[in-house]
């Protein structure tokens, strides 16, 4: 085990630490302001309406929740798949995972019509609802990831480390399956109703979570001037490529399957060709910038070992992920419900029309507030506890498993 030789140390109290606290704190404060405004005024100040019922806050929330389970993968690869190279990053992996999940959950809860009834959601369960299962899965994830972290940081619990790692890994797969199924189980929405949503969301989580993790790892090491070798970064680089490819493949299969089903031609034509912003986000945001460009940056021979190209790839994967979730969530709702197959419908309630949606500044503030919470938690976490290894230089890592 290589990580017996790894030394972990808290981040020092530099000016940069306080600068980050102020920066992320300001973003969180903006989110809080948006929440209080929504709570006081109601959702009429948002772009959400009775046609597009889930909006930008949900894109942020689901991105963070999906990325959370993916961020835990780095730890899982070390623990469950026994790859020593990944083990020194296990602590940070669990911290980032918990921080992302909490950020996402805060956005999700604060966007509710009645966030004050959170206790109701915790005490009244309809077990046929995948949403109710998700509430249990989120709480369980936090508990298991926390316990997993404990076994990594407390020598007395070292015997439980593999079991905790396995449990957390299994739980995170089920959790993302559950998040995907929130959409997959919506029988009447033509863009959702499919079992492939569960594995698609798992692949997305691998990709988004790893991209976020790499950026956090790099920033943490660069800003505290700790050595970060090429071995670990290149391993993460090619792992990211595999995950981007997996998500792209499942998305391709989803659309191909839809294109084979006549009654889904309408929604596919909308997303792939006629959908305006959704079509652009799909082809330019999700496919080109979010997948093809990062893959090129990773595999381009002239960029091997180039850190900037890896960081740009990660940023693009994250932006592409937002685009993908925007297309799935908002695009899927914008396409009208099919009330009478084979007929056109019109009404005062916008039946048969492509629904309009333009997020307001309050929704941006609330969504970004969740990102702020996640980043703030990571920043404080690495300051107060020993999450970051002192060095991940090539010579201190045991990479003989490659």
């Amino acid at each position, binding site marked *: 085990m290589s990580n017996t030789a790894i030394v972990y140390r808290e981040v020092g109290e530099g000016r940069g630490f306080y600068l980050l606290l102020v920066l992320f704190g300001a973003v969180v404060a903006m989110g809080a302001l948006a929440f209080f405004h929504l709570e006081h005024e109601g959702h009429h100040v948002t772009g959400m309406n009775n046609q597009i019922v889930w909006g930008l806050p949900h894109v942020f929330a689901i991105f963070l929740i999906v990325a959370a389970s993916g961020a835990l993968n780095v730890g899982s690869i070390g623990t469950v798949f026994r790859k020593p190279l990944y083990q020194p990053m296990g602590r940070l992996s669990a911290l980032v995972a918990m921080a992302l999940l909490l950020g996402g959950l805060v956005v999700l809860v604060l966007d509710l*019509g009645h966030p004050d009834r959170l206790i109701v959601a915790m005490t009244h369960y309809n077990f*046929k609802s995948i949403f109710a299962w998700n509430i249990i899965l989120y709480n369980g994830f936090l508990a298991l990831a926390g316990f997993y972290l404990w076994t990594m940081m407390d020598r007395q619990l070292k015997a439980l480390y593999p079991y905790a790692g396995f449990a957390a890994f299994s739980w995170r797969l089920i959790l993302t399956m559950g998040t995907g199924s929130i959409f997959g189980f919506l029988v*009447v929405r033509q863009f959702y109703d499919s079992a492939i949503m569960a594995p698609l969301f798992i692949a997305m989580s691998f990709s988004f979570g790893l991209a976020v993790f790499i950026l956090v790892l790099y920033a943490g090491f660069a800003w505290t001037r700790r050595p970060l070798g090429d071995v670990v970064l290149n391993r993460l680089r090619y792992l990211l490529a595999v995950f981007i490819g997996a998500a792209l493949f499942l998305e391709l299969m989803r659309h191909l399957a839809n294109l084979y089903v006549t009654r889904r031609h309408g929604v596919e034509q909308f997303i792939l060709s006629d959908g305006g912003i959704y079509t652009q986000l799909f082809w330019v945001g999700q496919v080109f910038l979010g997948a093809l460009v990062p893959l090129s940056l990773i595999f381009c021979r002239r960029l091997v070992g180039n850190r900037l190209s890896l960081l740009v790839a990660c940023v693009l994967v994250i932006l592409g992920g937002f685009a993908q979730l925007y297309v799935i969530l908002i695009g899927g709702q914008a396409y009208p419900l099919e009330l009478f197959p084979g007929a*056109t*419908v019109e009404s005062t309630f916008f039946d048969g029309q492509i629904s309009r949606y333009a997020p307001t500044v309050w929704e941006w503030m609330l969504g970004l507030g969740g990102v702020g919470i996640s980043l703030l938690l990571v920043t404080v976490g690495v300051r107060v506890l020993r999450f970051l290894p002192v060095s991940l230089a090539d010579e201190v890592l045991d990479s003989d498993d490659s």
Partner: protein
Amino acid sequence: MSDGLQQVPQRNQVDAYRRHFMAAVTGAATLATLAPGVILREASAATRPDVTARPPEQPATSVVRWGMLIDTARLGDGGAAMVAACRREHGWGHDPRASPEQQPQWVRTVRVTDKLTQHSFTLPVMCQHCEHPPCVDVCPTGASMKRADGIVQVNKHICIGCRYCMMACPYKARSFVHEPLTDQRPHSPRGMGTVESCNLCVHRIDTGRIPACAEAAPQAVIFGDLNDPDSRISQAVQALGGTQIRADLDLNTGVRYLNI
């Protein structure tokens, strides 16, 4: 449920319905067109009330299943009067700060045109009060609920406003309240941050009255107990059928239509 005295004339009525129905299915096209009107009119002439008041101490029971049959050919206005009656009864549709897309609509008239034949009709669409409601399946807290007598509604005390039911409803029958409201109807409280929809005027049914929309279009709408074979609605749907919107979803809706 009916007693013996009431059953006698209704047996005869059933026979009359059967005759009309047989004529409709075996006879000329004109008969087929006229039959629903004849039957609805005859059904309207029945003397037994469609709804009887339920004592407050008695819980709703699954012995009853409330339903509605709407003959779109006899509506005339496509259901506009029904929509207006619902608005008056429940006070929705003029929330001052909501945009047009944010305005709740418990019921609306929908114009349907076949893409090939261009055949067209208009019908009122509201919560269809499914036997297997997707909105109830997905609700995390159980706020979206089906009462024992088949009425699907929202328990506004435990609705957290997640809007998942709105995502799941095939009929777009649910609305979210986007702003603080004042001056509400005492019998139909609405709350910011919760989801709402047609509840078949549950406050009226429990006191022995039919829903406001059914009252506004007596020539075209029969409301009653689908579980009671002698009720007007049961006899009408037995004779004439009653089409479901999106019957392919197999939700067994309580709201049925003729001539769609």
